[in-house]
């Protein structure tokens, strides 16, 4: 039976490399997913995601088992990413401008052609790219809220803990982000049916 997050943390604190490795494997996807959408650059995102886990490893003793581990990791990811963006934001390249074969990206996933006819698959791919582009155009705090809430399934409370924002602000950010996403989608030719 798989160990719980708290058990893994306890083992990692006791010096178990395998426990820490399991923690990394368990949370590498959500952490990377958040970071890569924040910095918009795959190489930088991997570097920062590694940094997140190293910080977590060095500060395992400060983790409170009563809280969700994902929230704690998201908080470290948030701080690490904000630090980076403050220094390097102008140098990043939009994710959408990266290589075409972006396996695992929103566009690629939405363009899964296995169960669709070519026309539908092409439309799906276009829509995925449009959605990706729309997300990348959001303000950083809106983008972070969207990724955490809609992609990572974080609750309002999780987002509050990760970002340090009050609940009202988180809800407002999500509401405005959704509105802006819809506007961006409309601007990209994916407006609502008339």
């Amino acid at each position, binding site marked *: 039976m798989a160990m719980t997050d708290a058990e893994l943390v306890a083992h990692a604190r006791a010096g178990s490399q395998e426990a820490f*490795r399991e923690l990394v494997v368990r949370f590498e996807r*959500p952490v990377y997913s958040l970071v890569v959408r924040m910095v918009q650059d795959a190489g930088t995102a991997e570097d920062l995601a590694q940094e997140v886990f190293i910080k977590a490893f060095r500060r395992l003793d400060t983790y409170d088992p009563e809280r969700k581990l994902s929230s704690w990791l998201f*908080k470290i990811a948030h*701080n690490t990413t904000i630090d980076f963006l403050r220094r390097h934001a102008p140098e990043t390249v939009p994710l959408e401008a990266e290589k075409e074969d972006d396996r695992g*990206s929103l566009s690629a996933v939405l363009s899964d052609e296995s169960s669709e006819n070519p026309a539908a698959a092409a439309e799906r791919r276009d829509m995925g790219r449009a959605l990706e582009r729309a997300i990348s155009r959001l303000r950083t705090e809106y983008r972070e809220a969207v990724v955490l809430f809609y992609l990572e399934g974080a609750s309002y409370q999780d987002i509050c803990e990760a970002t*340090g924002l009050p609940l009202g602000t988180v809800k407002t950010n999500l509401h405005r982000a959704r509105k802006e996403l819809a506007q961006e989608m409309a601007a990209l030719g994916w407006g*609502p*049916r008339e």
Partner: protein
Amino acid sequence: MRPSHHDPLSRWLDAERDGRTEDAEAALLELFAAVPRLAPPAGFANRVLLRAGLAAPVAPAPGWNLFASRWVRALLVLCPLAIGVSMFWLPQLLQVLGGLWGLGDLVQIGTDLVVEGARWLGSLLGFWELFLTIARALATPLATTPGLGVVVVCLLVSLVAFRFLRDLITRDRSWTHVESI
């Protein structure tokens, strides 16, 4: 408007247009629910462990045994056989090798090596002397009180500047205050 076959997208955009917040949120959640999160490149965990200074454990496959391979067992049998056979050729080989160099040749080679080594050592000592001269020239001003004072002041200024930069980078890094991790 572009045609769309994707119900969640249409429902979301329609709901946004009509101001139905809950429907819009539900549709957008549904749209994203089928989207797996982005994954880092393979081997990410190993790289984290290495970067954290933790050796990545390389555990052998369960039940793995070197001697289970029949090729290894055959090789082990062949080794003593090969050694035994080579014994027949060994005396002749030594005789051939012995005929190549005489005692005088070996002494000459040894002498040449000692002379070359001494020459290289002399060159190295010359460089060492030059290094010492430069070091003495650099150290002379530091031996005086004003020189030492300048060095101490520079160190203090560097420390203060480093502290200031560190505070500047880590302070107020969120849009609101968050605990530092």
